[in-house]
């Protein structure tokens, strides 16, 4: 196991280098320039000076090498557009909020989605099953910004149960964004768990467990649930990454000062260093989420342990 983790960690280095290179190339392929947008027309001399200052006049491979050097020392460089701000500062100030929102939504999706799927599977084809699956379909199909708007309308304006319409400070302010962002993944987990549970219940080894006279509760928790969770864990990694990185819309609606806004505006204003810095950061998060999934996978399914040592 240790060997496996170390090998995976070593592998993240070339992956991150590749991510940097690809973002680097793609950003340069988009026409435009951080210093010459229509609103801020500046003389050519000043622009040349700025490019020299930020070393944008060097060949691309030198820029790339410089940037990699920066990442290795945890220095993501200065923002090209926002004056006197380093990417590190932006991350430090705004990323924790996005991380918290993503993590809370993931927790919400996991804690409510899995029991819902389990209940639906155990009462397959009952009204409970149909009800929860209808709810899941709706939750999965309705986009998060619509859910967010509805939640604000119902809970903040009509019912007025103490949830503010925006912000990210008190726990009350975190409830609605968490639900809005987590509802889709929750519905996805519920459907996934129901499907895998029903499949596992059909397995021969479940019949064996019953034939041994084990109590129903033990059959379900130890034999059925554990085997049903393997595919769920596989799906959970990318979802966690998606929730942490993809909360831009929800952050906008609830006016949460997260990292999402910076990401989008940095792309439109060609703020290369911010885009690169955030991409690298989010890649690292996705890579680690998948690493955790793979470790969990090995714990849940002993067959994969033999296959990879």
């Amino acid at each position: 196991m240790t060997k496996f983790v170390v090998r995976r960690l070593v592998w993240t280095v070339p992956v991150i280098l590749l991510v940097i290179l690809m973002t680097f190339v793609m950003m340069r392929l988009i026409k435009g320039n951080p210093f010459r947008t229509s609103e801020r027309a500046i003389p050519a001399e000043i622009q040349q000076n700025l490019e020299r200052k930020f070393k944008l006049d060097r060949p691309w491979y030198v820029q790339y090498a410089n940037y990699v050097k920066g990442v290795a020392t945890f220095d993501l460089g200065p923002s090209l557009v926002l004056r006197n701000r380093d990417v590190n500062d932006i991350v430090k100030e705004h990323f924790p909020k996005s991380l918290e929102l993503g993590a809370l939504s993931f927790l919400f999706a996991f804690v409510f989605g899995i029991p819902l799927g389990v209940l639906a599977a155990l009462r397959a084809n009952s009204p409970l099953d149909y009800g929860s699956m209808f709810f899941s379909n709706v939750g999965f199909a309705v986009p998060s910004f619509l859910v967010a708007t509805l939640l604000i309308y119902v809970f903040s304006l009509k019912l007025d149960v103490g949830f503010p319409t925006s912000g990210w400070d008190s726990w009350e302010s975190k409830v609605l964004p968490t639900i809005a962002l987590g509802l889709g993944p929750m519905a996805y987990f519920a459907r996934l768990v129901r499907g895998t549970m029903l499949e596992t219940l059909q397995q021969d080894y479940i019949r064996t467990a019953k034939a041994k006279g084990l109590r129903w509760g033990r059959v379900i928790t130890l034999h059925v649930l554990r085997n049903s969770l393997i595919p769920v864990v596989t799906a959970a990694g990318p979802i966690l990454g998606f929730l942490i990185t993809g909360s831009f819309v929800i952050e906008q609606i609830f006016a949460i000062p997260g990292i999402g806004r910076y990401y989008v505006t940095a792309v439109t204003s060609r703020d290369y260093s911010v885009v690169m810095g955030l991409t690298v950061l989010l890649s690292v998060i996705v890579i680690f989420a998948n690493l955790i999934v793979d470790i969990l996978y090995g714990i849940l399914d002993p067959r994969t342990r033999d296959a990879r040592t």
Partner: protein
Amino acid sequence: MALLEVNDLHTHFFTREGVVRAVDGVSFSVERGKTLGIVGESGCGKSVTALSIMGLIPQPPARIVEGSVMFEGRDLVRLPERELEDVRGNEISMIFQDPMTCLNPTLRIGTQITETVRRHQGLSRQDARRRAVELLEQVRIPNAAGRLDDYPHRYSGGMRQRVMIAMALSCTPKLLIADEPTTALDVTVQAQVLDLLEELRREYQMAMIIITHDMGVVAEAADEIVVMYAGQIVEQADVLELFDHPEHPYTEALLGALPQLEGEGIREGRLTAIPGRPPDLIQLPPACRFAPRCRYANRHDACAQGVPELRELRPGHFVRSGHPASERAGARAEVTA
């Protein structure tokens, strides 16, 4: 009183296409310490019979609509689920056809054995572990203590079936139901597993129901044989009687499909197959269910008029046919012709 008495058991599957009468009025009994063989081709209801005894039929779609399963004075069909759980794996246990899929791939072999003894006998963790090693040694798993913490994927098919046997025997049951215990195994392993089963059956003084489509398997292991066809018993007799004087045309055909290596009747050339397929269990005609495949039936006799009764031709030898061998004039000549 017999250990197990199955009386007029009807297990039906309620499907969208209609009611499948998988087990349609089956009765037999198993004496203490004896082995009953249930023989028949795929889909004849032998496995559903076994699962009905254990209370393991998938509900829905299946349901026991009629009949009783008396085990030591208790009717298992009417026993509440929690009491049935106390019987399963403890007084009656079962092993299945495919050992590759019957063990939980994510639990250690040791856990899967000990959970049974801990459940029924309340053994401590250490005692259960000791018992598991003892059981694995009994089913001849080499280095039993060392293999206890392995997962099933490190065991071969034959070894997994031995583990299944060890689990089934762990609480010294009075009855063991073996549903096609050797069908999925390598031919070389089949005989070993059968010998092991028989040896342990004697040692534990268990009764056994062995379900198979292989006449060769029951010939060695069983005391009495029940032949099933399309959800019903078509012939029932002592093992020697059945092999020496098969009465039902279906039984004869099954024996004809068995390769013979010695004796006067050495068959040359091809084995004889039974033409046709078993009937659709949803739309059963009110006639002998074997008639369409029977070489002696014709459209005008009793075979087409109704389902023949299971009658006792000789003491202990029952047959459900309008044309049992002993009532056929010149049957021998016809077969050899």
